């Protein structure tokens, strides 16, 4: 005879040849198991409940907020239906289990009234959901007329940001002013990518040959995590993004700092050595660096293969598709890891392993990190 709780799960024996348990014991066993399941579920929901940096549950701006406000009512309606249906299944199994006492079932073939009822009620609920959904779609799609435009270009596997009014490029970290709407006008240089900053808005594709728009706004200064969400090739998982929201004043300061070029290093300094390595090792084939002395700027042609512009590299908290530095890793260690063998960190990376010596890497790091 199997233990009594087994009965709840249908019993181990075929019900045709099983002996019925005493009714009271069955009830107690079932109740016990149900309570156990509920406790287990409750316990589960408290483990790791802390929200992750990419959570959709902590909207930081009006657009994400709007989506969040739309999600929860629908979630609770769905939960209601869930409880209703799953409850009905459990009750049916519990009440109508054949215990061999009640004779055969009435042969009911259906009920037109019920059919109408469970067609109309869901239809009404859905209609109720449809109205705010449709309104929100139109609200959230078109950029406001006074939004700040930032052009986003997707590359395998990093995001490039172009600030058209100020006229410069940056990568991986998008800086925006808090409290103001930003209109991301997006396209792709290669395959389809999908730009997603969960705290600021939903996702939007970056499509080669086409332009899409995404409204972004952060109410408070802060760093917001993002990720490319459409599978875009070998290192899709390593195509991440950051949005740094700063106060409007900081934003203006940042803009003007970025517009200028990097200082030309003084000969004989460690920065100078790094600058030389940068030019000698072919980094200039892909990476633009604008210098204060514009005649010395190292500019990659538009139609050539482009890597991230590195003019103000040191001002960015993350690099290499926003994957480095990892948590607990120093910036210098992260740069060493990256420069010593990029495809080993990011498989398929277009930045090849240039077989740099340790000394060359260190010089490069000194120079790159001097360009605030």
């Amino acid at each position: 005879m199997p233990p009594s709780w087994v009965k709840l799960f249908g019993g181990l024996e075929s019900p045709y040849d099983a002996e019925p348990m005493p009714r009271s014991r069955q009830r107690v066993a079932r109740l016990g198991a149900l309570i156990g399941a509920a406790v287990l579920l409750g316990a589960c929901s408290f483990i790791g409940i802390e929200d992750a940096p990419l959570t959709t549950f902590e909207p930081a701006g009006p657009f994400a907020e709007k989506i969040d406000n739309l999600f929860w009512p629908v979630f609770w309606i769905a939960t209601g239906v869930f409880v209703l249906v799953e409850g009905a299944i459990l009750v049916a199994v519990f009440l109508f289990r054949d215990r061999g006492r009640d004779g055969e079932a009435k042969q009911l073939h259906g009920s037109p009234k019920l059919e109408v009822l469970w067609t109309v009620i869901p239809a009404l609920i859905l209609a109720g959901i449809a109205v705010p959904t449709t309104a929100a779609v139109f609200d959230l799609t078109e950029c406001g007329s006074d939004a700040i435009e930032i052009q986003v270009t997707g590359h395998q596997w990093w995001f490039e940001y172009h600030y058209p009014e100020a006229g410069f490029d940056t990568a991986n970290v998008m800086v925006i002013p808090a409290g103001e709407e930003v209109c991301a006008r997006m396209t792709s240089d290669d395959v389809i990518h999908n730009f997603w900053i969960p705290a600021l808005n939903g996702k939007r594709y970056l499509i080669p040959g086409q332009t899409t728009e995404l409204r972004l706004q952060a109410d408070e200064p802060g760093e917001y995590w993002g990720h490319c969400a459409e599978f875009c090739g070998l290192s899709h998982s390593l195509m991440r993004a950051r949005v740094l929201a700063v106060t409007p004043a900081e934003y203006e300061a940042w803009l003007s700092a970025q517009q200028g070029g990097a200082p030309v290093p003084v000969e004989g300094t460690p920065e100078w050595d790094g600058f030389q390595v940068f030019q000698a090792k072919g980094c200039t084939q892909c990476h633009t660096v604008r210098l204060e002395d514009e005649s010395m700027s190292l500019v990659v042609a538009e139609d050539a293969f482009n890597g991230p512009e590195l003019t103000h590299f040191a001002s960015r908290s993350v690099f290499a598709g926003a994957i480095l530095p990892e948590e607990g890793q120093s910036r210098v260690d992260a740069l060493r890891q990256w420069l010593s063998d990029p495809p080993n960190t990011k498989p398929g990376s277009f930045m090849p392993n240039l077989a740099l010596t340790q000394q060359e890497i260190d010089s490069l790091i000194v120079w790159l990190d001097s360009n605030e």
Partner: protein
Amino acid sequence: MTATAERPTTTIFRRPSSTTGIWSWLTTVDHKRIGIMYGYAAFFFFLIGGIEALLLRIQLAQANSEFLTAGAYNALFTMHGTTMIFLFVMPASAAFMNYLLPLLIGARDVAFPRLNALSWWIFFFGAIFLYSTFFFGTSAAPVGVDGVGGIDGNLAAGGGPGSFNFLADSPDGGWFGYQPNAGPLYSSGTAMDYWALGLQIIGLASLVSSVNFVVTVLNLRAKGMRLLRMPVFAWMTTVTSFLLLFSLPIIAVALFMVTFDRQFGSLFFAASNGGDPILWQHLFWLFGHPEVYILILPAMGIVSEILPTFSRKPLFGYSAVVFAGAAIAFLGFGVWAHHMFASGITPVAQAAFGLATMTIAIPTGIKIFNWLGTMWMGRIHLDTPMLFAIGFVAMFTIGGLSGVTHAVVPSDWQQTDTYYIVAHFHYVLFGGAIFGLFGGLYYWFPKISGRTMNETLGKVHFWLMMLGFNLTFAPMHWLGLQGMVRRTWKYAPETGLEPWNVAVTIGAFIIALSVLIFMFNWFTSRRRGRPSGLDPWDARTVEWMTPNPTPEYNFAVPPVVTRLDHFWHLKYDQDAEGRAARKADADEIIARIEHEQLNPAAPIHLPNPSYFPLVAALGLPTMFYGIIYHDALWAKALIGVGAIITLAALIGWGMEPLEEPHEGHEDHELDEELELAPGDGHDG
């Protein structure tokens, strides 16, 4: 069959005649044997797809894990999706349809038995072709937009950190093959060609089957088996066949476009030349969404058979369930763009497709409520098939509800391309389709073996699978909403996703364990299971009116159907209160049926086996190998050889009669011959 006399009696080859051994299987045209072959092949690919999933889960159990290389990971998730959809759930459904459709409608075979064999062999060779990519395919690093970049040696030795990199030389563009990532510039090896052409072959197999099933249902029903007396599974087979007929040509065109882009330099999806990569998504999902219903409707049909039997009540709202199935299929063609809400289609289109998607919840709800209505007031017997059917309803409901949350378009902008979607469709396709299919296996196992499967092991299987399934896929909802994107080889530890991923991986291994238990049960029960007799479940439908295992001729006496649940009404009356009352002579009726069906009054002539379906199918992959390497001379020759093989087989087929002439065929009174068409549809 007077026409027989006019058929040529000799063909080039001697006609296969063995009834046992390997040749009998290779040349069979019996729908039951074809169904069994479909079933075993599908299960084999279920195991392969499952192993792929386990490897993916080992990778993801740890943040920043380097168990697999990125290339191997991408290849494995691509092949996991492709395998589970095209090589497992579809052929598994086809297995049930093949085996059961004629039995459910009281026929002796499908309308075109040889065409049926052809579709099985096309599927089989297509699957082998697709999987041969692991041996022959290559997958190169992207060459960059202008052919710049992709400097040699970009991939560190071994393809970057991780192991199993030998798996990376296989399709890696996702089962959805989004362009241009899966196009010639960004997936430049041959692996995606194997994928595109392999799916093309497998699609053709489904197309041929669906023609066959549509005609079978329309023309071969037993006397009295009106359309609205057909078991729901027969209905869902019909609906699925129509879905296939209307959706496969679209994916065929799309796959041809990809193949032409990749092989012959056309520019359909080349953005740099004005091609539109979003067009691929429209075409793919115009097929892909009906495909979802192609996967789920057969399982819904199975569940609609199991629930009434084990509730000992008729299906509640039979016609509502049938029409809801048809409505789901119809609406399924109008919702494809909900897979593309993030693609920047116009707000009008987004709102329209959002609303259309919501309407699908209505017929789906009708089905669920009617299944509940079936159980309600029933006398529920919790045998293993019933557990799986109830599991289906319970889990599918969850998938349906999360589906409604994606119909809320702005919510979907957050959810799409995250694990929330992975959770959603696994609740629908695993909690739904696969639970339904397992229920069907336990339910109809007696029909192929004459035995029932072990109940204890069956229940252990069910509860373990239920536990493992929920442990695997429930946390994925949370993971997705916490920002875990799909198709991600690595995630950073600071995302906080790791503990949940550990749970998911443990769940995946519990599922694997439950599948092993099922396999043990299957193989031991085939030999040692309890003999089932004719009617092990006190069933309702006519497939149980013939002995187990099913005789080769299905029915010695085809049933003459008087009402829905014909078999049940032979056994049961209703008392004054409308309760079922078993007839006093029910056991005698069953015994008589068994005796009649085991002892045909006259010899029954069945279609003869044939080599030609096998040979005709063999030509296709031969040609397609040639296309992949078409620059080489040997490959051009291979195309020719393949074409000749297929053409020759079709000519032989045309000259070979479906049945060899047999004595007494002029005698109409005694002719119990199966009323297959006066020939065979080799033109189609």
